């Protein structure tokens, strides 16, 4: 059985041109001025911005082990609602994704969802314990074809272990995605170190704890000739170091989260734990620096660090609350607010930083392909002229720990197509049985 042919009419492409897009069997069959074939489903995209389906290189799906926060199904629903068609699932589940069997299990959970492609990230060290390497090669050779490895949540702080990991993944074109946080400099840390933290009596997380690890890691990467990805860059100093490393020819890529593009440390003054995150919200100068870094290409991508938590882990005193915020549903709006509407980047750049580049860094073939004939039909349609007051109803995952609730944000995802299958239409998620059945028939085909 083949999925029905679909025609997107009158969309604005990332380069600004207006075109129709035809989808057949999960693949883009035509881009230009097209006629609908009989029986084709028509999506009116007049005035809508089309983007290649968004790719998130940093998602915490929580399953297995923390299903009260999120499951692969609920997390991929959140992804689809936010315009994502691919998510890279972080390894800090329980058990930790540190063997071939476990990453294959995560892959299978994604296939059973259908709302988005789930690409597992493997742990760098067994159990994230920072003591010995996980079976990186076995994960790379598994059906999950893991290329990105990360102990995210904790830093691979041991310099020798980091060196070895960087060296080892060269065998299969892998990369280490580092959560850069020197643990001894951040014992008990609660928020950005600075005047606000001093006033609130919260232990500080100094910028140097991030920057020192990044500086060490780019030098190690240069020394062993490997590939490094820096997770959630949050400080002006980190941007400077990465800019220096790139100028030197070191193979380093970096991501910034939507929240570090928009929010600042003073939000902690409310002691509202929705604003507690690791790395912490920083100063206005840091926000300016990460925006500039993203605009000039020093920072390659935006990644959500979507981190769901159950209510009781946020509805408590700040020092007792968990770190992290959900971000899949709001990411594109925040990027539009901070980068597009400010004139720093255009929609073609959005396509790069939220789709093409993350797929390339993760070495995931098929994802992040341009809106061109022959590409997989992962497509996101956005109404950039829309404005909404972000509310719980805009969240599609299991948790509601969003820092944007009550905030006015621009843009709204109108439709998401995953492998040609609508996961979101008219701004609403499609039912699971419909989505999973259609995606299965497409993938069986291809």
């Amino acid at each position: 059985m083949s999925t029905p042919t679909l025609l997107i009419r009158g969309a604005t492409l990332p380069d600004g041109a207006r075109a129709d897009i035809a989808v057949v069997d999960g693949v883009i069959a035509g881009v230009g001025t097209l006629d609908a074939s009989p029986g084709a489903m028509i999506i009116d995209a007049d005035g809508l911005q089309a983007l290649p389906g968004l790719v998130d290189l940093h998602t915490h799906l929580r399953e297995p082990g923390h299903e009260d926060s999120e499951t692969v199904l609920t997390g991929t629903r959140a992804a689809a609602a936010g315009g994502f068609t691919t998510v890279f699932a972080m390894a800090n589940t329980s058990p930790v994704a540190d063997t071939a069997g476990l990453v294959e299990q995560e892959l299978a959970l994604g296939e059973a969802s259908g709302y988005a492609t789930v690409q597992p990230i493997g742990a760098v060290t067994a159990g994230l314990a920072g003591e010995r390497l996980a079976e990186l090669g076995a994960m790379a050779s598994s059906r999950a074809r893991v290329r990105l490895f990360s102990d995210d949540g904790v830093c691979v702080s041991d310099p020798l272990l980091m060196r070895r990991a960087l060296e080892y993944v060269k065998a299969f074109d892998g990369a280490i995605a580092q959560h850069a946080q020197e643990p001894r400099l951040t014992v008990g840390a609660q928020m950005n170190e600075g005047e606000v933290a001093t006033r609130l009596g919260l232990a500080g997380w100094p910028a140097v704890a991030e920057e020192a690890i990044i500086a060490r890691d780019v030098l190690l990467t240069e020394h062993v000739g490997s590939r490094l990805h820096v997770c959630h860059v949050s400080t002006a100093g980190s941007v400077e170091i990465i800019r220096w490393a790139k100028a030197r020819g070191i193979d380093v890529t970096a991501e910034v989260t939507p929240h570090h593009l928009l929010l600042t440390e003073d939000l902690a003054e409310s002691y509202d734990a929705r604003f507690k995150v690791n790395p912490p919200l920083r100063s206005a100068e840091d926000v300016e620096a990460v925006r500039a870094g993203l605009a000039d290409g020093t920072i390659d991508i935006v990644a959500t660090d979507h981190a769901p938590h159950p209510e009781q882990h946020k509805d408590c005193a700040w020092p007792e609350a968990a770190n992290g915020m959900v971000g899949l549903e709001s990411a594109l709006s925040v990027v539009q607010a901070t980068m597009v509407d400010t004139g720093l980047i255009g929609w073609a750049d959005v396509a790069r930083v939220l789709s093409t580049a993350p797929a390339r860094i993760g070495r995931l073939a098929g994802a992040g392909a341009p809106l061109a004939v022959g590409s997989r039909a992962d497509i996101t349609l956005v109404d950039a002229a829309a404005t909404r007051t972000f509310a719980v109803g805009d969240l599609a995952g299991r948790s509601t720990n969003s820092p944007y609730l009550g905030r006015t944000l621009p843009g709204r995802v109108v439709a998401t197509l995953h492998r040609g299958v609508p996961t979101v239409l008219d701004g609403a998620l499609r039912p699971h049985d419909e989505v999973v059945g259609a995606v299965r028939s497409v993938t069986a085909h291809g």
Partner: protein
Amino acid sequence: MRHLLSTRDLSRDDAIHILDVAEDMADTQTREVRKLPTLRGKTVVNLFFEDSTRTRISFEAAAKRLSADVINFSAKGSSVSKGESLKDTAQTLEEMGADAVVIRHGASGAPHTLAASGWIDAGIVNAGDGTHEHPTQALLDAFTMRRRIHGTASRGRGLDGITVAIVGDILHSRVARSNVWLLSALGARTVFVGPPTLIPLDLTGWPAETSYDLDATLATQPEVVMMLRIQTERMKDAFFPSPHEYARRWGLDDERLARLGPDTIVMHPGPMNRGLEISSRAADSPQSTVREQVANGVSARMAVLYLLLSGERED
């Protein structure tokens, strides 16, 4: 006053008003019958997630002298220590009809969370939260300074032109934080003195100067020298090399005591480490207000509970 969470929320007029009410309360404590009927029928809960017998009994005495019913809810051995959340505890207290909750908590901001949560309608008094604030300590300190300096003419007055040296572990001190805002509101000047490791790096915009040299600061003849308790465990985290070195450089020893003017006030929030941050002679000297501070604590807390629980609520 709806809550007392931070001295930073107090204007000069607010602060002087609280101190004046504390004077009234202190006056009643010299009478034969010390108990006032003012808060009869009101329930004050002392919710102590952290042990602090001194602060708890001070609040308890204050509430009882105002005829309030007092419930002591201490974390040790209760459901709180078995993982019950702040939210569940607050809802329990709401059901019990608490009019005011005096909260001591190890987590900075816990009183704010309680006040902002909607879990409970009671007025919240911060009795010390983590390394954040301890507002009633600052009020009793200011009350003590004002009485020493202005005597019976204290009412209506601030601490204008007074210099207060706060000496020790500023970084972790909720007493220092609450004092700096209140002293500033009252017109006093604050100098933080201590090892650089124990003074916050970024004090931009704070009404405080900093000094690493106690002797240089004492040479400027500050009107008040407030010694903070130093925890010797800090030395394990490399904040200073040894108690001995700390005492030599930042302790108020007998020799430094001798250099103070006869009117210099020596304060300590207690409990003291005699021989470490303060010598016995300094603690027991006529300049020392350590014992007055304890008595004044009850008056200051009576004033706070009175202002919180009597009269109209402005919310």
